[in-house]
């Protein structure tokens, strides 16, 4: 086992294939650990981690906290809604105040793209990006690829379609980087208004027709429509979106092969996928959540081993 090429996990763009392989190998060991009767190891007992969430999160925050606690790290968590950020404190001041309490690592979610990168340049701590605006969400992309690897044996050579709101999605961008780095082919599918212009420059193809996209792919990653980020109407109605880009059981069963259904959560049941699809045996949505803890344990463990 070697070590990561980076001291922070800011995005998939900044790491390489060897890093991804190392994270996956380490996650394999942690997956075994979290299935033991006692799911905890003492590795990080002298490490303190702050989880700073300037944006709402349930699953990612819980998953990070659980990963940190399973590694025996000391954890402090805060959400911006209850903090002095509301009183006008700057990001660097907030974080430096937290670091004065001898914190070694910061896991941050922020609505501004590049916030994690900015922080890594300005404070002395290892930074993990838990989502920065519509930019990147690296641990989600890692756990998505890890779940594909677990289900299909390998990511290389697989065909993955990302469906839905690509424009507002940090999950889409991180997934595109991660999948391509591992040798998968990627298509995006969604209403034209929700596909970023020039997305082809990332090496992906655009398929406006959901049926054609699904017939092509091995894995479909169904993204949530991010209504909270939409200041104008990107499509006429939720009903029309569901008719054009929603995946239901009839469509899934009419395909000539069994594909894997993924969703980063939270699901809008009946919009991007129906309940019977979300709960079908082709869906790996709950596996993704379990793998999320193992992947985050691996990332934190590997970054912590580089803290001096």
């Amino acid at each position: 086992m070697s070590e990561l090429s980076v001291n922070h996990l800011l995005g998939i763009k900044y790491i390489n294939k060897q890093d991804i392989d190392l994270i996956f190998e380490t996650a394999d060991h942690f997956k075994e650990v979290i299935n033991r009767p006692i799911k905890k190891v003492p590795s990080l007992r002298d490490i303190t981690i702050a989880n700073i969430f300037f944006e709402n999160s349930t699953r990612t925050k819980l998953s990070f906290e659980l990963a940190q606690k399973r590694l025996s790290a000391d954890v402090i968590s805060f959400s911006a809604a209850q903090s002095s950020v509301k009183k006008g404190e700057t990001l660097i001041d907030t974080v430096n105040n937290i670091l004065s309490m001898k914190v070694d690592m910061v896991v941050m979610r922020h609505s501004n793209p590049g916030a994690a990168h900015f922080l890594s340049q300005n404070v002395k701590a290892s930074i993990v990006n838990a989502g920065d605006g519509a930019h990147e969400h690296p641990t989600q992309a890692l756990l998505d690829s890890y779940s594909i690897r677990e289900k299909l044996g390998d990511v290389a050579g697989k065909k993955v379609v990302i469906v839905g709101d690509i424009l507002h999605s940090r999950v889409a961008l991180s997934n595109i980087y991660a999948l391509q780095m591992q040798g998968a082919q990627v298509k995006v599918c969604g209403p034209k208004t929700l596909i970023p212009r020039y997305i082809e420059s990332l090496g992906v193809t655009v398929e406006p027709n959901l049926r054609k996209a699904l017939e092509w792919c091995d894995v479909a990653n169904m993204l949530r429509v991010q209504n909270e980020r939409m200041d104008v109407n990107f499509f006429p109605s939720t009903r029309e979106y569901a008719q054009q880009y929603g995946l239901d059981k009839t469509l899934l069963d009419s395909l000539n092969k069994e594909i894997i259904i993924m969703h980063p959560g939270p699901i809008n049941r009946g919009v991007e996928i129906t309940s019977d699809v979300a709960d079908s045996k082709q869906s790996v949505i709950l596996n993704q959540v379990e793998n999320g803890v193992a992947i985050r344990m691996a990332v934190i463990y590997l970054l912590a081993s580089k803290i001096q």
Partner: protein
Amino acid sequence: MSQKILLTSKEVNIILHRLACQLIEKHLDFSDTILIGIQPRGTFLAERLKDLLEKEYNISKIALGYLDITFFRDDFRRTNKPLEANKTQIDFIVENKKVVFIDDVLYTGRSIRSALTAIQSFGRPSEIELLVLIDRRFSRHLPIQPDYRGRQVDAINDEKVKVCWVEQDGEDAVYLINK
């Protein structure tokens, strides 16, 4: 760098038979006993002993598991070399069982200290014993001693004891290497 042979293939074989007999003396039919090979190098010795007990001494169904101690070590972030994890495979309950840890070399005792903590993730054994092929007697950092030992060696800290196995290294032998 010079090396001196401590045990030849024939001597290793005799010692393995003796250790197997000593285990039988204490554990009889092994119905309440679990052998645990400490990763990475203890697994060869554990597999070899299981094989011997089953084939030469007709004891059936010996429970053998592998325990990786990487995440329980006390030198995380204290060495320049990254800690390398291995597979843990314990497919049975250790609660109230007699556990025998098996490792190739007992040196500082820190690995065994980690293993004592790690095994607790799988339950509370009724007792834990330690079997090693080589016991480096003057090098202990902790009050840990083996219950079964193949050979005791008085090596100084500059020397390294290397245990070779046919499966991994092409021969059964133990060398003392002068660094």
